[in-house]
């Protein structure tokens, strides 16, 4: 995907349905990753029922949503996980789902391998347990690798190895690429954002400016590495990266959370960015008519980025990263490649940063992974 600026204005004005719709099926998770964007752990008692979930799929199919990014929590924990996924792909709504792999045994892998319109992303946060487990929990790396083994054995071609780029994992990009390749899989990298529990670890885990420069160069040489449009804030470093290169929150992206709340994007689970709920009248009216989404689709002023010659390359970066670091929407991205964000951050107070409005983290950290 790429888009010239005329088209980009159209996209910023909103579409009849999202291009990229994330649906978190549950807040339940058997891991407790330190950077979890949805602060998951405990199931919410108010989560959509199976009947509600299937009806939602029908509506999304009628709106011609092309595919869903299904996540959580750990989506495979839901007992109706396969019912929901199969219902979607039968209606030609593709599913890309993210899993920590702990529930992906040989039988599940075979079932997944038999489905069309389906993509699986198994998450690790480093090329070895020593790097990944401190972020995702003891035993999580080995469990994810077992899931990848199962997928490969089941003949699931081209699944994705999904990695959040941190100060540590960024030093292992070549090893991660080689690991994906060894399975015939594809590598998918995502930006670490200060969302959910990530608020607390962002300062310590985010790549340094020098690492971000190397990451950009590495990605430019590898257009086959998937990024989900994550790193467009780095585009001013030189060549624009693959993708639309704009913040799609409420315009081309949005999130439906496990209780049916609709947020502008998966990284802004906060009252400020809640557009409505699918329960009263479905998803369509929220997408088309909510006050929040109209606000986000109005032409944005470049604000503090106005004097930057690279505004067209990065459009001021990521709204979520700005919001949860206490910056204004019109400020530069906190990781602005020219350091404007860092300078602005220095004037804000860490203790005044917004915190997520809801938190399903377990009160007690998990013990060993079973």
């Amino acid at each position, binding site marked *: 995907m790429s888009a010239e600026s005329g088209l980009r204005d*159209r996209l910023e004005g909103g*579409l*009849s349905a999202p291009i990229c719709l994330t649906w978190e099926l549950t807040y339940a998770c058997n891991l407790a990753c330190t950077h979890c964007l949805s602060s998951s752990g405990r199931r919410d008692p108010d989560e959509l029922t199976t009947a509600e979930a299937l009806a939602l799929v029908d509506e999304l199919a009628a709106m011609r949503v092309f*595919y869903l990014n299904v996540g959580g929590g750990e989506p495979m924990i839901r007992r109706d996980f396969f019912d929901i996924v199969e219902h979607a792909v039968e209606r030609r709504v*593709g599913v890309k789902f993210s899993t920590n792999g702990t529930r992906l045994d040989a039988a599940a892998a075979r079932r997944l391998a038999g489905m*069309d319109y389906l993509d699986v992303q198994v998450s690790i946060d480093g090329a070895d347990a020593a790097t990944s487990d401190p972020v995702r929990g003891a035993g999580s790396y080995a469990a994810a690798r077992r899931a990848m083994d199962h997928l490969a054995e089941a003949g699931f071609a081209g699944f994705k190895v999904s990695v959040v780029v941190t100060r540590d994992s960024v030093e292992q990009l070549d090893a991660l690429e080689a690991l994906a390749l060894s399975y015939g899989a594809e590598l998918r990298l995502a930006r670490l954002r200060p969302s959910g529990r990530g608020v607390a670890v962002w300062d310590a885990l985010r790549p340094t400016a020098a690492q971000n420069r190397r990451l950009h160069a590495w990605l430019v040489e590898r257009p086959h590495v998937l990024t989900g449009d994550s790193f467009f804030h780095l585009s001013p470093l030189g060549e624009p990266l693959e993708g639309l290169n704009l913040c799609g929150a409420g315009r081309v992206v949005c999130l439906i959370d496990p209780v049916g709340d609709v947020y502008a994007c998966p990284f802004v689970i906060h009252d400020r960015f809640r557009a409505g709920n699918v329960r009263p009248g479905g998803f369509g009216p929220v997408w088309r008519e909510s006050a929040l989404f109209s606000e986000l689709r109005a032409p944005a002023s470049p604000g503090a980025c106005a004097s930057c010659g690279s505004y067209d390359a990065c459009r001021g970066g990521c709204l979520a990263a700005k919001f949860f670091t206490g910056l204004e929407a019109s400020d530069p991205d906190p990781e602005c490649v020219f350091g404007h964000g860092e300078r602005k951050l220095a004037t804000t107070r860490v203790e005044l940063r917004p915190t997520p409005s809801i938190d399903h983290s377990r009160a007690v950290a998990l013990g060993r992974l079973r």
Partner: protein
Amino acid sequence: MAPDAFDPARPWRLSPEVSLRDEPFGALAYHHGNRRLVFLRSTGLVALVRRLGEFATAADALGDLVAPSERDRYARALATLAAGELIGVG
């Protein structure tokens, strides 16, 4: 398999793997196989792509549905869609 090069003398149609969705600017097309997302930036092009399969050749479709002054431009757009396998011979 490399996509067929666009030859207007052959019969073309929208790939069965493609979902098409109308948008204010034209339409969005998504190919479920190669995961390509393509913007069709005029309603004329969308109508042409939708009805392509009704004609014996792409040239016939262009002749019937598109004004003469626009045909080259639309043929180039079809060639791009063919390269992305959004339309195929069939």
